[in-house]
């Protein structure tokens, strides 16, 4: 048997089966759509025809009964029912299994499809039509003659040569017939012989078919993925060679070299982009299987679910598409099984009986966001909290302090499942943690937001590609390491003179106070057990801290030297090194040497950052901090001045950012002065005005710029306008007398001056009460 033909057949049939899944589900929603029916019929017909030609008789017999059932449907003799759809989908599955088996072993495998065939036949006989003659199907001529013999009045084959789109889609139907046992008779002629099509019609339709075929094959070709991978590797090589040349060119002043080197630079970049594009696939490729998945799950648990998609054309690297396929499928199944309620419950809750599952994909900031939203019952935070504590996943006191959003995200913990009963779909307590692990493995993040009674949204952020990523290059212990930019938050450099005091120790764990919060420090030399660790630290030299995000924790990585950011080509590590999860791969630097890429998650685990049980909620810390502001403990304050010499302080942990705006940026919305800030409108509150102090606002407007302390909560920001920012101090606040004025916590002596402590939340509440209303579900949580 010709392997080439079989391979072609497998590739094409698999694609067709995927579209069958889709079309069948579509047809269920629109049973009278003749176009869809005809298309389904043609697909099955072609598969059947080709496999009879290739001698796959089991496959053929299954496809054959399916085809008969479909022809009844198409001719309007049968009405599509859920049972028929289920049977047809089962047939598609059976065909798929056989194709898989053919692919792996070359034969259809030992199987018994009698039950399925019987079901299909029984359904077909629902209106009393004669069962198909099995012996006809087994004969080599079944492709053309069988349907005619079974139902002379129907014209199933008539459409094949006449409709040009048939040929476009199913170009192999004809060659398959041509090749059959060396019989040169073309399908048109065969049909003509049987009198169902006029010879002239067939002849006329032929050029149209061939033209259609030609245009399709010219527009695209199949390329082996291996070849693309190889191309990608070569381009990676080229990028490295380019980097080397560009580096060298910078040291010479020969225009003969500089010009071509610049051209090489540009062309390489374009080539890199081009090759990357060949590896990009629309996410629709995996989504297209979901209507079927949703239908199956919905039917099995007696629910009605409609699936909607937006952004199907959003493209991702092939390897990423592969690795998000399973997590996505799991989430979709989960949403239908757990999220969306049964029709009665929905009706009782005043929702339409049919649930809605909404998939959305879009680009944002060099990443692809994927959202899976259901309008189901939402997550029961109380139950999750209880379960998590019951199972010892988190301590009870911690659970009590967690926000709803954090509670919702507990579902990603290993061993967590709240399903009351285990269904065959989900509820075994595996899954969500696997989803999270898999998404994080490719450098993505996953987050869940839910509102009881309204629904749940799972949001994933996925990098576009894994092959070439921006990274920060650092040196430690004499070796270079690359840190993927996605995990990078900021860089902190502590100069020599401060180094001694700035790094403190909790027991033996080094920490650094970053804007009032303790940042655990990890010395890369220690974590990797390289270099002379003790000597390194004793030398009082500048300390480079790289603030990294691992999971939802931050830690500071101390390295010897920070070099530069670079686009690096990620190369996998050999199998021998796979067990070390501290490294995500390796790359080749401009000088041709190899550098290891650090896996931030792995590193955090190695250094025990992740397992540390620290309160993760900054928002709650803030609230607690403002309450405790009167207690004598060391705090960091931002000092500023309003009016002439009104000294004020706010706790630094409440400050998101310090900004400066020119006065012409100030606009008015309603009663408030606002500025545009990071694409959103940020209201401004003049601290002095709000506290009924002197009319300092005018004075600051004259100055041309205003100093703004940005406070953020629930993704919304508010700007506190101050006259002059003085300093950041660390003080043990003592001897305060509390104030009755709203907006002030009290006053204290800071730097030998009496200073008012501002109650930021109180201040905002009095001036813009709406700020704390309805933190909307869709808002981004700040870091």
């Amino acid at each position: 048997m010709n392997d080439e033909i079989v391979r072609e057949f497998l590739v094409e049939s698999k694609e067709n089966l995927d579209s069958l899944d889709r079309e069948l589900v579509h047809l269920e929603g629109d049973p009278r759509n003749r176009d869809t029916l005809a298309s389904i019929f043609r697909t099955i017909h072609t598969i059947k025809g080709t496999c009879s030609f290739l001698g796959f008789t089991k496959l053929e017999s299954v496809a054959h009964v399916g085809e008969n059932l479909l022809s009844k449907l198409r001719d309007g003799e049968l009405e599509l029912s859920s049972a028929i759809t289920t049977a047809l989908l089962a047939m598609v599955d059976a065909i798929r299994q056989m194709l898989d088996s053919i692919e792996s072993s070359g034969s259809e495998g030992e199987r018994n499809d009698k039950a399925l065939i019987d079901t299909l036949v029984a359904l077909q006989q629902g209106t009393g039509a004669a069962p198909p003659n099995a012996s006809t199907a087994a004969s080599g001529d079944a492709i053309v003659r069988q349907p005619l013999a079974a139902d002379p009045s129907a014209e199933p084959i008539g459409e094949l040569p006449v409709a040009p789109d048939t040929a476009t889609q199913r170009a192999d139907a004809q060659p398959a017939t041509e090749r059959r046992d060396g019989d040169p008779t073309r399908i048109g002629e065969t049909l003509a012989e049987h009198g169902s099509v006029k010879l002239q019609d067939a002849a006329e339709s032929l050029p149209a078919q061939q033209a259609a075929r030609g245009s399709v094959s010219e527009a695209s070709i199949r390329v082996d993925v291996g070849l693309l991978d190889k191309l990608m590797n070569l381009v990676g090589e080229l990028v490295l060679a380019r980097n080397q040349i560009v580096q060298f060119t910078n040291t010479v002043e020969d225009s003969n070299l500089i010009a071509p080197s610049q051209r090489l630079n540009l062309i390489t970049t374009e080539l890199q982009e081009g090759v990357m594009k060949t590896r990009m696939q629309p996410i629709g490729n995996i989504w297209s299987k979901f209507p079927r998945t949703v239908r199956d799950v919905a039917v099995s648990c007696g629910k009605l679910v409609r699936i909607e998609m937006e952004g199907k054309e959003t493209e991702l690297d092939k390897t990423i598409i592969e690795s998000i396929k399973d997590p996505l499928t799991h989430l979709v199944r989960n949403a239908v099984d757990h999220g969306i309620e049964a029709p009665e419950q929905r009706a009782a809750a005043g929702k339409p009986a049919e649930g809605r599952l909404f998939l959305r994909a879009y680009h944002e900031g060099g990443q692809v966001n994927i959202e899976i939203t259901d309008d189901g019952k939402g997550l029961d935070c109380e139950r999750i909290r209880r379960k998590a504590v019951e199972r010892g996943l988190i301590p009870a006191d911690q659970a009590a302090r967690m926000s709803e959003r954090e509670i919702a995200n507990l579902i990603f913990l290993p061993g967590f499942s709240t399903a009351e009963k285990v269904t065959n779909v989900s509820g075994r307590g595996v899954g969500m943690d696997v989803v999270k692990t898999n998404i994080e493995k490719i450098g993505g993040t996953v987050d869940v937001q839910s509102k009881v009674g309204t629904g749940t949204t799972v949001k994933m952020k996925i990098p576009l590609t894994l092959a070439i990523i921006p990274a920060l290059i650092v040196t430690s212990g004499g070796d270079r390491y690359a840190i993927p930019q996605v995990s990078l938050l900021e860089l902190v450099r502590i100069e020599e003179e401060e180094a001694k005091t700035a790094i403190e120790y909790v027991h033996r764990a080094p920490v650094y106070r970053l804007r009032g919060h303790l940042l655990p420090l990890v010395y890369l030399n220690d974590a990797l057990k390289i270099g002379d660790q003790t000597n390194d630290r004793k030398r009082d030299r500048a300390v480079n801290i790289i603030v990294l995000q691992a999971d939802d924790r931050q830690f500071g990585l101390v390295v010897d030297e920070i070099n530069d950011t670079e686009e690096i080509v990620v190369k996998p590590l050999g199998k021998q090194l796979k067990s070390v999860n501290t490294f995500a791969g390796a790359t080749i630097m401009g000088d041709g040497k190899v550098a290891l890429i650090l896996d931030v998650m792995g590193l955090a685990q190695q250094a025990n950052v992740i397992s540390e049980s620290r309160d993760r909620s900054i928002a709650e810390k803030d609230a607690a901090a403002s309450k405790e502001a009167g207690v004598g403990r060391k705090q960091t304050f931002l000092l500023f001045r309003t009016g002439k010499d009104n000294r004020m302080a706010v706790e630094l942990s409440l400050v998101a950012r310090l900004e400066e705006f020119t006065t012409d940026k100030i606009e008015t919305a309603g009663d408030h002065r606002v500025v545009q800030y990071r694409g959103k409108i940020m209201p401004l509150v003049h601290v002095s005005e709000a506290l009924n102090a002197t009319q300092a606002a005018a004075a600051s407007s004259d100055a041309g710029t205003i100093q703004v302390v940005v406070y953020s909560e629930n993704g919304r920001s508010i700007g506190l306008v101050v006259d002059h920012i003085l300093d950041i101090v660390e003080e043990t606040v003592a001897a305060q007398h509390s104030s009755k004025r709203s907006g002030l916590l009290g006053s204290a002596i800071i730097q030998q001056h009496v200073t008012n402590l501002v109650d930021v939340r109180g201040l905002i509440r009095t001036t813009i009460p709406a700020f704390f209303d309805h933190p909307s579900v869709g808002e981004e949580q700040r870091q």
Partner: protein
Amino acid sequence: MTKTRQLCTFFADGQFFGVPVQQVQEVIRYQEMTRVPLVPPVVRGLINLRGQIVVAIDLRRRLELSDRAEGQLPMNVIVRTADGAVSLLVDEIGDVLEVEEDTFEGPPETLQAASRELVLGVHKLANHLLLVLDTEKAVNGIENGSLRSGAEV
């Protein structure tokens, strides 16, 4: 007439080793290596083989022999394995020898543990013994060892 086969030969700690030429991709001189922290010392580092990153395994350490003298640079024997190319660091490269199959004999019972696993057998040549190495085994079975060296401080 007896069957023959070709072996690529090399030396490690005075011993004479050979692997079938088909398994050898190439032999290159010493390359600068990037060390890999947290892995067993058997892995000496990573080398850049024309853009491909290859793990270099020190054959002396793999066979639990003594380390090379300071300053003695190893050679890379790049072998093809099921999981891609791997470099075996050896002391010196020998010739490609054509040996007769009937000079082959299984490893002696007294062979030490580490070598015993990796040495398939011995060709008895006129003036010395040629140990045939199992390349797949030589490059595998390392990852478990990493647990030992990666232990917590």
